[in-house]
């Protein structure tokens, strides 16, 4: 006999209250990053030069700007999920843990927005 309520079974969220959402988000963003990350690393390695003009030409190309924005968002999301688990594993004091988790989320969003703004400035033309 199961002691779980019918509603609990339907929601399927378990004791952590958010079910497999974190796990699944990590896998899906990981698959996206395997592709986007490989494109980025190879593209940077094959850039004709490391001057400002080459960088601007690379980033402002429409296809590159779109892929870089996807990379920024996906990397920020994947990194946020990963750092969250590390904090939950190693920071045991309740207050410090909560503070670290909030700080990590703020930092990830801040860095991602800085990156997105820079891509837009170059892509649309400052």
């Amino acid at each position, binding site marked *: 006999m199961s002691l779980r309520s019918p509603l609990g079974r339907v929601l399927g969220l378990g004791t952590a209250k958010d079910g497999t959402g974190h796990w699944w988000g990590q*896998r899906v963003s*990981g*698959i996206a*990053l*395997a592709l986007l*990350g*490989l494109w980025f*690393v*190879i593209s940077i*390695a*094959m850039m004709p030069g*490391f*001057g*400002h003009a080459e*960088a*601007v030409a690379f*980033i402002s190309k429409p296809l590159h700007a779109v892929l*870089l924005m996807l990379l*920024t968002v996906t*990397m*920020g999301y994947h*990194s946020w999920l*990963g*750092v969250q688990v*590390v904090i939950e594993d190693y920071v045991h004091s309740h207050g410090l843990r909560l503070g670290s988790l909030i700080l990590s989320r703020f930092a*990830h969003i801040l*860095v*991602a927005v*800085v*990156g997105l*703004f*820079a*891509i837009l*400035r*170059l892509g649309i033309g*400052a």
Partner: protein
Amino acid sequence: MNPNDRPLSPHLSIYRWPVTMASSILHRATGIAMAVGFILFAGWLADAAAGPDAYAAFVATMGSTIGRILLVGWSWAFFYHFANGIRHLVWDTGRGLEKEQANASAWLVIVVSVVLTALLWMVVS
């Protein structure tokens, strides 16, 4: 049986590291390294948008000896996390979890990550 003869839980200082243990720790370590690298990535974009002077300072910093060592480290961290991430995705399908398979794939990931890093830097230089 004397209670003192019972096996003790592993003491890390005398415990022989299985390669799977190293590969698990490396996955987390390379992930944290790339979380820091995410700041560098945004800094690269921001400096490119800020103009030639800011970008020259960025290139000078990352082109220094320490900068180059860090870049090689980050590229290896990417390839390691990339290859080991694929290993995790294969595990998620329920395959490759036998001890011998996991040991072999751990070594494969280490070798692949080093080879890909070497190939990448041969393209750069």
